[in-house]
């Protein structure tokens, strides 16, 4: 092989290596060439959003240059997005109609929301100069609502993926509406365990502990602080107290203490599930209520804008 051929071959191989590396990178990012994956869906959807935003920005720029109010166009685009975003609530309440799966609706909701945030930046360029909230009362409220809904949407996007995973790790999943019933049962079981004691010393020790600590823990709801940030501090404190009782008890009574400790753990699991499930539900409630308010304010803003815009 001549030097020229070797050089030529080397050049080809380098080119091929570059192409292969680029193709591999694309495949890794997009998941192309493999079976359908969430990553591929995410990349494609994000690409669509980015391209759409670029087109919208180009259109807005062109309209601005053509002496038109590009804000009118972006405003209509925004309000259309808001309607589409709110429709997911309608779809959820009408499950019988063949309107597509909730998964598809959720994906559309997510990426439409991302697109709406981009369009909002086009609609209110002052945001890029650091003024997040408009100065007028109506528009200040509107922009505040928009940011709240957008932020809650982003939080929900994260929470809807993290919280179910954390709930699964806890163990058996209990419906939120059944948790009070389970709490009642646990409290009743603990009472039964205490009442089943026959050893006077155990009755005195465990009964006193139950009266002073356990019953209060089992009968009360978790605190607001726990609902916001659930921790195992309270559970560990109760369990530590139960362990302390063991040195005063016989073996049989220690076994009762062990069952009570299991019930306390069960109760803590329920509280944990309650806090996380409540967090999801409160988020949905706030997000949907704020979305409705945002839509109403946006409609009012649109009417006013169309009435006062001169050209």
């Amino acid at each position: 092989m001549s030097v020229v051929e070797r050089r030529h071959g080397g050049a080809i191989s380098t080119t091929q290596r570059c192409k292969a590396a680029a193709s591999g990178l694309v495949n890794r990012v997009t998941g192309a060439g493999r079976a359908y994956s969430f990553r591929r869906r995410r990349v494609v959807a994000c690409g669509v959003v980015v391209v759409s935003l670029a087109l919208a920005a180009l259109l807005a720029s062109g309209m601005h240059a053509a002496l038109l109010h590009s804000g009118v166009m972006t405003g209509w685009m925004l309000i259309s997005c808001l309607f589409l975003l709110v429709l997911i609530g309608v779809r959820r309440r009408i499950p019988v109609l063949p309107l597509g799966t909730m998964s598809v609706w959720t994906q559309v909701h997510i990426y439409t929301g991302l697109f709406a945030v981009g369009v909002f930046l086009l609609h209110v360029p002052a945001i890029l100069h650091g003024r997040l909230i408009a100065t007028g009362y109506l528009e200040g409220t509107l922009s505040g609502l928009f940011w709240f809904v957008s932020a809650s949407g982003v939080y929900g996007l994260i929470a809807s993926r993290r919280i179910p995973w954390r709930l699964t790790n806890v163990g058996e999943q209990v419906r939120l509406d059944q948790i009070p019933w389970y709490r009642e049962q646990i409290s009743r079981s603990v009472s039964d365990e205490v009442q089943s004691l026959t050893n006077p010393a155990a009755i005195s020790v465990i009964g006193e502990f139950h009266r002073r600590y356990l019953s209060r823990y089992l009968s009360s709801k978790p605190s607001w602080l726990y609902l916001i940030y659930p921790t195992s501090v309270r559970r560990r404190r109760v369990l530590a107290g139960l362990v302390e009782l063991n040195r005063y008890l016989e073996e049989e009574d220690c076994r009762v203490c062990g069952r009570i400790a299991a019930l306390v753990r069960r109760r803590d699991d329920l509280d944990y599930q309650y806090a996380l499930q409540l967090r999801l539900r409160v988020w949905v409630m706030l997000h949907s209520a704020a979305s409705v308010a945002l839509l109403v304010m946006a409609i009012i803003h649109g009417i006013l804008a169309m009435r006062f815009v001169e050209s």
Partner: protein
Amino acid sequence: MSRSPRRDEVDLPDPPRIQRPGRPFLCGRGQHGNHSAGDTQTATPCAEGPTIAGECPFAGRCHDDSGSGSGKKKTAGKKGANDFSPCRPIPTWAGRRRRWTAGVLLLFAFALVGVFGTSLAPEFVRPGNLSTSHAQILTGDLTAGGCTVCHGNVSAETWMAMKEAGHVGTEESLTMTDRCVACHHDRIPVDLATSAHNVSAETRLAIGEQRREIMLAAATDSSSVRTVSGSGVSKWWPPPAVSQDDVACSVCHREHHGADADLKAIADSRCQTCHSNRFGSFADSHPEFTNWPTSSEHAIAFDHSRHANMHFPKTAEAEGPNQTLASQFDCRSCHMIDPASQSDTRDALLNDSIVGTLPFEATCAACHEESLGVQIASGPALIELPILPREVAEQIESWPEDAIGPPDGKLSAWMLLLLHDQDPSVDFAPLSNLALVDWQSRSNQELAVRLGKAVREFAIALSIDGQAFLLDAAQRAGADLETSKAFAGSFPTQVMRDAASEWFGRSNVSASDRFSARQSAASDSLAATPDSGDGDLLVDWSAEGGDDLLLSGGANDDPLLLGGSSSNGDTQSNLLLPGGGATDRGLANWEDELGKRFDAARAQSLGGWYRDDLTLSIRYRGSGHSDAVLRSLVEVASKSDPVIRELVMQQPAVAACVSCHTSLPWRESHESSLRNRLTKFSHRPHLDITALQNCEHCHSMRPGSESEASSPSFAAATQPSPLTGDALYDTIGLLNHVSARPDASSDVSPHLAFGDTDADETTRHGHSDFLPLRKAACAHCHTASAAGDHCTTCHRYHVGDVSQQSTAVSPFEPVR
């Protein structure tokens, strides 16, 4: 010890099967201490469940059971409950969520209704703070209308009161632009407020055509001038979506963007969307300057090059070692920085008075005053009797004998001017040179008769009405009031009365008496005046010469005339008579002296009106620079018929004026041409840069003729080519004179050139002695990252001329 059980090893009973979490309430049996229903663990929720209002269905049955039959028990048994004790229903999450959501939304709705139904609405819907300038007016005490000042579709009392049409009251036809112009009509012409650049479509088209021609002409020199357009992404910008004749103010000026918002900020792309030539940055693709600022038209013709290279050095050489600073050519000797222009006001920016020149007395008089006095010494005649043939003169009543004879000479252009103004239907211009008139022609004879009669009537009218007649004539001819008053006020009517009486009021004296018409009181002609009793009361011809104190022998007592015979005998003491020595000499034979022709140069050296009996005329001798009478004559002539204007301009005194003042106004006017209004430039910020304090950094004096040809930009502007040279100058001149108003092009331009009205001549009298400024000189600093290169840095949008409009009366009152 055995280990404790795991949490998942603890058995708990299964939850009740009958549950409806979607309902607002759940049955409370077996939950939350609801142990009244049997108080057992087996208590399960009833099948029916609580009502939507949260009531247990068994709550009322306890009472009914005591009096009713067993039917209810059967019903309860169907529910699966072992007893009929009521429970306390538990609110579900779904119920709570609905109630909270409904409550919040209801509160929100009430808040909206409360806001929009009250007077808070305008404040609430206001999208943002107004800019400072508008806010201090609209939100202050000066206006009570608030939003209604600008927005017609809102009520000041309650926003909800706006009508279906979107407007309130009788102002529904007013747009926001109308309301803007209601306040800004002093800067924006009302009728062209929505036209692009506030100029008419015709003017815009004319500008476009002229620009194209200039660019084409400049493009012939492809090595130096680049007419780049459409570079980069700019060519992809869309055309304007609005009509260029209907551009609302809000297209560019967006309010409610905060107090610090710049209402005048506009993107370059928005400027260029209407323009056919588009470009990116100033440095890279802005078209090269073709003739900036060489096309600036100046009222005073001043050849900088000749003064710098010829006159000043010659003066300095003549002065020798004693030369003063005044003999050195220095730009700042004439062009002073006006402190008033240092403010950044619109007027200061529009009128960059740094380039304004100092007055004649401070700059030019040292060299030119003496020669000017010589030039204006030969004053023009306000009225001059033409020499007419006898056959013509006989048809004119009392035409003086002295004015009869072979026609010769020229008619007074000033007189022709005023006669033409009195009767525009008659054109005496064919008789302007009497020697060249074909007197055999019947029509010429008839015209001469009309001329003679008109002159006679003019003289008599001038004698009777005097200054009032002149004031009216001057104003009617186009002179402004101040100049007309100065002109008319200077006129000595009595001189005219005497002249008219002498010319037309008595029998004509013989030609030999022409030189002794005012010879002396002893003249026999006065005593023998046969017409003294013909009713002419203007002059008491019967008066004896002794009554004329000026002419009588008693004149020896007149201290004004007899400076030499004053008591102290000091012949030089009479300061009122410049020629005191001559007067003194004349005293020896004053009668002979008075018999001679009146010598205005000697006896009236300071200027003024006098009668010339040789030419049978009333003349004016100019008093020097800025003489009011000569100014009025030039102003009137500038608005007169071109032929007559040409005749006036040939008069030596007038020619002396217009040799420098090539166009009106006399001094640099603040009224700029459209081109100058489109482009703004202020020397003030540039002079903060040390290098630019040297004027020649930008204004390079034109080199010699050899260098001229080698200068590419100069060659591009002057070398003959299909559209360069004179054609280019013509185009530039046209561009300078394009008015913002379509009808103004036919009117008298504020810059009216005299004499040779060619635009090239006008331009040469402008800045043509400087090399055109090149774009590179500006682009060095004017980049995006330095001094800025936005369109509005150098160009204005609102260039409509409002100077012709009366600003005292608004087209309509601002809406309050």
